């Protein structure tokens, strides 16, 4: 055993008791190494102190209380089992895209309406000179083509 293996064994002793084989290997290593022996004994002493800690008390009905609490949660839990969690991001992205599309359509329509309203207002604001309209009826009549009496008679 070398110093690195000794260090690894010390680390293992923090988690579990050493096997007989490990202990005998260690005993050979520690023989004549006072500093290492002192370190090992202190590690063991700390392990012993930590093992003095008793278990925290647990109510006899603890499991029953947990199950009772869980049964109250079971309905939503069952629902979410049917709703795979990997769908959530996809649904979120699709929702965001649909929302963005609806928003842009709404804005386009609103801008169109605003444009039409603006044009109507511009037309209504424009002043037509009165002399342009005074011969309107006469000009309108002149532009009417004469009735073709012969054609009408033939059709009859």
């Amino acid at each position, binding site marked *: 055993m070398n110093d690195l293996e000794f260090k690894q064994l010390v*680390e293992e002793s*923090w*988690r*579990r008791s050493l096997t007989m084989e490990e*202990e005998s290997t260690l*005993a050979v290593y520690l023989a004549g190494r006072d500093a290492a*022996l*002192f370190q*090992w*004994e*202190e*590690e*063991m*002493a*700390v392990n*012993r*102190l*930590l*093992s*003095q*800690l*008793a*278990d*925290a*008390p*647990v*109510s*006899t*009905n*603890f*499991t*029953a*209380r*947990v*199950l*009772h*609490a*869980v049964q*109250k*949660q079971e309905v939503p*839990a*069952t629902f*979410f*089992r049917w709703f795979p*969690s990997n769908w959530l991001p996809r649904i979120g992205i699709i929702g965001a895209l649909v929302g963005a599309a609806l928003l842009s359509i709404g804005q386009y329509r609103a801008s169109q309406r605003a444009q039409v309203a603006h044009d109507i207002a511009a037309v209504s604001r424009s002043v037509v000179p009165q002399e342009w309209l005074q011969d309107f009826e006469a000009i309108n009549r002149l532009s009417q083509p004469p009735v073709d009496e012969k054609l009408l008679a033939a059709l009859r």
Partner: protein
Amino acid sequence: MATEFEPDTALMLCVKGGDMHAFEELVEKYKQPVINVISRTLRDETEAEDLAQNVFVQVFKSAHRYQATAKFSTWLFTIARNLCLNEIRRRSRHPADSIEASQIENDDRPARQYEDVKNFSPTEQTLQSELEHKVAEALADLPENQRTAILLCREEELSYEEISGVLGCSLSATKSLIHRGRETLREKLKPYLKTGAWKENQS
């Protein structure tokens, strides 16, 4: 299919499928180590039980997300640690409130409708002893990550890889945390260290 996994993972996969008996088995197996860790972290045995209950409820609620690649105990103690940290933060904001008080507002559970008898084993009597008190005190004074690392070592004999998974740090950082924590304990508990016992056992 579940037989390919370690027993706890197989049980957790059954819980994922809605098996309440499997869940009960896991609660029975892990209630003591979870309550121990929480109790040492919060230094409050009464609230440790309530928080441990929340841990198991959280396990059940998150069962659909459980992946068999993670060891169950690592996952469980990660949840326990996160809830402990939340509780410590909550206590620092509202020092006078207990978990019980905050739960009652939102929970119609008859909290003590069952028989509530604590098991007082003979070893619990030693809890009052000076030595145990001093050890508990020295542990409680450690920084949270050092204390949790040492407790996980002691409670569940988790591997260092698993402890580093719970703490969210590297393997070397985990070993360093444990080493530094033990150094502090050694300093604080120097008068109580009985060296030489191992040597006596060997001879």
